[in-house]
């Protein structure tokens, strides 16, 4: 790890650790995170950002998962990046993003000097805390960034299992030109959906690192039948499996980073989100088994991580969704194409680019 990256992670980690003391205070978390400029990490310098390597920015998102940050840093990073790519003003306030199923993207229509958009954006994250919502629509085979004001949208508020805001948006709007911006060819609805999945992979990997930590620690402290339960071989074996799941999630999330800029390698994200989601389920089952009843309580910290992990594995495509997408590609390549498919995806001859 180079110096600038470790400095960044140290700084962010210290902040997130401090914010963990007030896990419900999204406003405070947001202010402090924005104060460090973190939401601009993926924006180029011309737009006032820091132009960090993607791997570094995503490492911060993983830390946010690890410390259960109360603010949507990942969504903001992506939204700002898109605003910059589209040449729009970076949101001073809090941007977020919304997605459709990439197989059924939003369609834009031109009517006189206005744009019209009609459709649904289900379970859009953090809209109630946001000042700008961005999404990607299609018009005439082009990708367009839509820059939307939350209060202009018909919204049905809701939350995921972890009480994080998820709002169903219904769009039936006229938009001005400044709200509809051209995007590069590679940044379409599918890219956005996959990038959302990429964020969740990092958050899952981060959260699982904490779940492993707290479970190992708990097992060392909890005494039953006169000794810490961590001394029981059956518990040790389970903790070992928990560690393997945390490790494979981290590895899968790392692997997916390579795909951010490389459309030929998007299947890495499919694989990673499927694998991270599966790891989350298996790891939590063990964490709860080791914790016993205390882990099932709202007050104990495992609860926060459990409900986030159970939600995140579903968001931006569940295991089922991504396994099917990946399986489709594998089957299309045929039996003799399997191994070449895997090696092509796994090897970047140029290394991870920004």
């Amino acid at each position: 790890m180079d110096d600038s990256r470790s400095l960044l992670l140290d700084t962010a980690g210290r902040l997130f650790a401090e914010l963990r003391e007030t896990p419900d205070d999204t406003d405070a978390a947001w202010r402090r995170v924005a104060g460090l400029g973190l939401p601009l990490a993926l924006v180029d310098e011309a737009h006032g950002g820091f132009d960090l390597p993607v791997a570094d920015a995503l490492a911060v998102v993983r830390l946010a998962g690890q410390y259960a940050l109360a603010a949507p840093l990942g969504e903001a990073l992506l939204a700002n990046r898109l605003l910059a790519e589209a040449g729009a003003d970076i949101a001073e306030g809090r941007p977020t993003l919304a997605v459709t199923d990439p197989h059924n993207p939003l369609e834009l229509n031109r009517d006189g000097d206005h744009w019209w958009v009609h459709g649904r954006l289900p379970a859009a994250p953090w809209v109630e805390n946001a000042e700008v919502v961005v999404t990607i629509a299609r018009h005439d085979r082009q990708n367009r960034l839509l820059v939307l004001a939350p209060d202009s949208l018909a919204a049905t508020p809701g939350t995921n299992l972890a009480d994080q805001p998820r709002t169903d948006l219904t769009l039936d709007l006229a938009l001005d030109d400044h709200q509809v911006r051209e995007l590069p060819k590679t940044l379409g609805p599918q890219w956005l959906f996959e990038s959302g999945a990429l964020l969740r992979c990092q958050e899952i990997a981060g959260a699982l690192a904490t779940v492993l930590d707290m479970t190992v620690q708990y097992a060392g402290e909890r005494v039953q039948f006169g000794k810490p339960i961590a001394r029981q071989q059956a518990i040790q074996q389970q903790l070992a499996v928990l560690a393997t799941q945390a490790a494979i999630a981290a590895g899968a999330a790392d692997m997916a980073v390579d795909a951010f800029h490389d459309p030929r390698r998007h299947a890495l994200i499919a694989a990673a989100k499927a694998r991270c989601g599966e790891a989350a389920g298996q790891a939590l089952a063990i964490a709860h088994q080791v914790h016993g009843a205390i882990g099932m309580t709202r007050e104990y910290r495992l609860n926060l991580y459990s409900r986030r992990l159970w939600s995140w594995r579903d968001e931006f495509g569940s295991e089922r969704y991504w396994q099917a997408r990946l399986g489709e590609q594998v089957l299309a390549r045929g039996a003799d194409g399997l191994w070449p498919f895997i090696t092509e995806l796994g090897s970047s001859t140029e290394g991870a680019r920004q």
Partner: protein
Amino acid sequence: MIDLSFPTPPESQQAESFREQVRDFLATELAGRTPLQRVESWMGFDAGFSRRLGEQGWIGLTWPKQYGGSERSALERYVLLEELLAAGAPVAAHWIADRQSGPLLLRYGTEAQKQAILPRITRGECFFCIGMSEPDSGSDLAAARTYAEPVDDGFIVNGTKLWTTYGHKAHYMVLFCRTSRDHEDRHGGTSQLLIDLTLPGITIRPIHDLSGAHHFNEVVFENVQVPRDALIGEMGDGWNQVLSELAFERSGPDRFLSTLWVLIELIRALQGRDDDQSRIAVGRLAAHLMSLRRLSRSVAGMLQRGENPTLQAAIVKDLGALLEQDIPDIARQLVDTGRADAAHRDFFQVLHYAVQQVPAFSLRGGTREILRGIIARGLGLR
């Protein structure tokens, strides 16, 4: 040869016609309850429902008529329980009294205790909770510290009980506690007391579970004066009393039907699909359910005959918890959970409820490791 035999479960025409009667009652009684309410299974609390069940004579179904029971067979009771669970009836109010505390009093209680309490239970007017776990004793029950100090006119109780299901709505608690200062005698120094929860010095605080629901409580005893006649059975017999209940607790239909409503709503969500994945997954779960129900009914028969099927009961519970936990996992692989489709609203509600509850299923009534330890002992390994 290791004897793992599960004898043929008893059959009776009478129990099967009783089943129809229960179904008719529940069809009317539960009409309009949502799937989300039904998946609560035996955690759903409805005092009115329990009272109406009592009016049918269906609480304390097997108990002697002199205490308000109906003197029906254990087999009919099994049928009643599984029909209640399968229908997702809100049985929590009377559940513990009917399943554990009432039988305990019948077996060990004084005549006065039986006459005072059992008829009220059967009328669905008297609810119980169990004071077993403590902050520092989970699976290791004998590590309980709550101390009921014997004094002239009874006991002075101090201590804290945890995970007391519906303690905040119960009238009585069966309290497992120490009645001797001799901590070397981990088992013999324990007793069970019948505690009126309105006594001064008892504080009941909620413990919210993962989903935010309030089923569990912390119950704190501070110098609570308990009369002498609250003792259940003999002084120092607490450990034996608890052990003898465990087989009953481990093998019933509540140990494998807790997520039946996830499977039911899954089947509804799959209607109209015609694919191998659905057929195979649903068929697999049905095969598990049918086979396990066979074993559970076999254990019920053994209990009815007064046998002691500790090993078999532990096997049923271990397999049951796995099945209950598998159902939501498998359901997630069949329906795209990433997009909560309005058409499948009930399914998603039920699924999300279950996801947050199932971790407990391999903890309650003995953790998976403890159960497998019991099975290993049955195999002669320890």
